[in-house]
């Protein structure tokens, strides 16, 4: 699936998008896999309460299932308007 990062999550991880092969069942499982990769991932995902997640462009919580998802995005709380 495609994993996207925005705002300071993107800056901390160092790129806006990557292809991830995973069997993670939920967003939280995917986060664990990413955290285990490198320090910059661990830093970006250190505090999940500071993060939001979208699965296939819909806001979800971290327990959302990933079955069939094509695109997961991580970002801080939004500040539009």
């Amino acid at each position, binding site marked *: 699936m495609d994993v*996207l990062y*925005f*705002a*300071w999550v*993107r800056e901390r991880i160092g790129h806006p998008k990557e292809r991830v092969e995973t069997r993670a069942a939920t967003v939280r499982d995917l986060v664990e896999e990413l955290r285990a990769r490198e320090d910059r991932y661990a830093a970006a995902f250190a505090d999940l309460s500071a993060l939001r997640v*979208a699965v296939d*462009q*819909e*806001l979800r919580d971290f327990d959302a299932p990933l079955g069939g998802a094509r695109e997961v*995005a991580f*970002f*801080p*709380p*939004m*500040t*539009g*308007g």
Partner: protein
Amino acid sequence: MDIRVQEAPFDLGAEANAFAARQAGMGAVVTFTGIVRDLGGDLDAMEIEHYPGMTEKALAGIAEEAMRRWQVGDVLILHRHGRLCADDLIMMVATASRHRADAFQAAEFLMDYLKSRAPFWKKELTQAGEGWVAARDEDEDALRRW
């Protein structure tokens, strides 16, 4: 329903006039416009990042919800991204209704949801450095009233 996400500046007056002119039978038009503030007096620029694809979907969803909840004849949401300067217009919403309460409430609802549920992020570039604008608790709290 008119939803636009764009890098280019927009003309509030031209948008407001066009929106008001295309309302048939609506007695009330409300607009809200957001403007870049230079809080510390040293803002070089504001950069607005967004999530192309999701942004448009989220805004359309919010607009549809507003049209379901209130008697509004039309909704406009226009939001810029990219690099802006102090006093630039960031975004606007417009609503039209028969009676003023619907247009006001729908516009406030659009703004509350747009603030916290549409994927935009603001970064301030000042002489002292750069930083992402933090979400305000009041903005999250504002959603509870709807």
